[in-house]
């Protein structure tokens, strides 16, 4: 294995040193079909810096053991590292306490956890669950399942033509029948940033709890769950430089404490008898079985990496890149970009003439340009937009203008192949 300077320096100075950042990501050096990889599928998953890969590696080489069973040195060290990771995650999102952070596989499991515990305990026949038409399937299907079981109804806040939420419709639908509002912080198809603080505030006034799906927000912005004022915040590590198989659910202590457990097993109990069990304290109550220990440790390292660069600087870099991408794409004849032009993150969905998104993706891939094509786990939104699929390019902290150029160039090839004027 070749192992260059593994981590970014704590002080890279005022300039955003894109070359140094790129050098931290081994995969960015590879070729795809003979071309430098232009990885623009970051909304699906992000690439990983050396420091994260090595944190996982070092865990297995040096301290691997099961956690919370600290009878020996390795187990003590593994437990410390795992619980320290929880602190890092909690601090990063402004959680009042690390015991409110539950490690899960990802945003999907986080949302399901709320649906299967809080939901099963509190949602009753006739209640309403309020979602929006832009939700990812992971923030949609769990609520449909819950509603089906509980006899509740799911309602959907409408979305404008440019993809932003119709807040009037939210006000209209929110009622005393609403028991839960679940909304994405950032749309994974259109890049729209929703006013989650306002949504949470109104939900609270209506005595509904508010679940925010932060899968597409956490990678790109500095979060403060207390400032947002929601009750639950769900996000995935793998979209923010961390390993696969790890994510977090933050929940308000008072709510978590009163929630019944979900998965049963080791770690989540205080006492077990043949007649029944007593659940453990937070956060263990919701972490049954051996967790993804290496994943949690890698997650903490990913957050430290983001903090070393600074999410404000990441945000500024991405904003510039997004503006550039929009400008270049808007200039392509016959190309239509969906979603708003500002106050958005760099997830850009578009269609190009009559070339189907999959065909676009195949052609771009031959030029090393990786984008996604399809419904993006967003079928109802697709229906709403009147399309069956879009092409989606999404940027992250290591992308460059020249990768956007490569995208636009490759679109030229697609035009040629399809005989688009």
């Amino acid at each position, binding site marked *: 294995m070749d192992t260059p300077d593994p981590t970014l320096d704590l002080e890279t100075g005022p300039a955003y040193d894109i070359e140094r950042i790129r050098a931290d990501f081994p995969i960015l050096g590879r070729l795809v079909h003979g071309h430098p990889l232009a990885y623009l599928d970051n909304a699906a998953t992000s690439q990983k810096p050396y420091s994260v890969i090595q944190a996982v590696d070092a865990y297995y080489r040096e301290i691997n053991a099961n956690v919370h069973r600290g009878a020996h040195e390795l187990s003590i060290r593994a437990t410390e590292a795992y619980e320290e990771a929880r602190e890092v995650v909690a601090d990063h999102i402004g959680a009042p306490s690390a015991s409110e952070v539950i490690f899960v596989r990802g945003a999907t499991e986080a949302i399901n956890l709320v649906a299967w515990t809080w939901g099963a305990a509190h949602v009753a026949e006739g209640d309403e669950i309020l979602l929006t038409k832009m939700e990812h399937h992971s923030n949609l299907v769990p609520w449909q399942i819950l509603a089906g079981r509980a006899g509740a109804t799911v309602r959907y806040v409408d979305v404008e033509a440019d993809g932003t939420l119709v807040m009037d419709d939210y006000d209209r639908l929110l009622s005393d029948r609403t028991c839960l509002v679940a909304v994405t912080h950032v749309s994974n198809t259109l890049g729209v940033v929703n006013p989650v603080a306002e949504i949470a505030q109104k939900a609270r006034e209506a005595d509904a709890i508010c679940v925010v799906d932060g899968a597409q927000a956490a990678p790109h912005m500095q979060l403060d769950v207390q400032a947002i004022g929601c009750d639950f915040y769900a996000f995935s590590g793998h979209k923010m430089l961390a390993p696969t198989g790890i994510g977090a659910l933050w929940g308000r202590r008072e709510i978590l404490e009163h929630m019944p457990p979900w998965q049963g097993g080791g770690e989540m109990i205080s006492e077990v008898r043949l007649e029944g069990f007593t659940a453990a304290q937070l956060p263990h109550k919701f972490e049954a079985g051996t967790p993804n220990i290496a994943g949690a440790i890698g997650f903490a390292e990913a957050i430290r990496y983001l903090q070393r660069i600074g999410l404000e600087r990441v945000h500024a870099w991405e904003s510039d890149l997004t503006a550039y991408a929009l400008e270049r794409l808007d200039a392509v004849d016959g190309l239509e970009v969906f979603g708003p032009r500002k106050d958005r993150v760099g997830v850009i969905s578009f269609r190009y003439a*009559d070339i189907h998104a*999959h065909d676009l993706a195949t052609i771009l891939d031959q030029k090393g340009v990786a984008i996604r094509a399809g419904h993006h786990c967003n079928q109802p939104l697709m229906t709403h937009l009147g399309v069956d699929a879009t092409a989606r390019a999404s940027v992250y902290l290591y992308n460059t203008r020249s990768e956007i150029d490569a995208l636009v160039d490759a679109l030229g090839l697609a035009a040629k192949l399809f005989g688009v004027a």
Partner: protein
Amino acid sequence: MAKPGHGSDGLELSSLQDLYQQVILDHYRRPRNKGPLEGATHTLTLNNPLCGDVIDLMLRLEGDRIAEVHFEGKGCSISQASASMMGAILKGQTIEQALAIMDTFTRMLHGDADAAADTDLGDLRALAGVAKFPVRVKCALLAWNCLDEMVGSEKPGS
């Protein structure tokens, strides 16, 4: 670091040109046999959940002979062209013949040169380029999977 331009553009371009031949784009843009089929004896909808492509295939069987094939659908040029090409080729074939064509077509998509030379495939031969793009094989087969699910078990001796 990667060398831009390394890996000949010519090769890629020719693979892509093979994939997106004029006849395919023509079927994609002006699909044949698309729309409702009166008197359909069989109809089935299949989708590819991961990409969202959908084909709704309609057959009219007369005895064990395919009198007519229509489709509805949405998706990429490959899935739609493949469905569009199907009608002309299957019209008048027995189920057994249709399944034999499907078999040859499938082998062609997996790179079998003999299959690609089989004139029974007609326009479908334009899809031979798919073999270089293995993930797109499922696109080319979507309509055929409908056929297989509808009449595959009627094959004599199976």
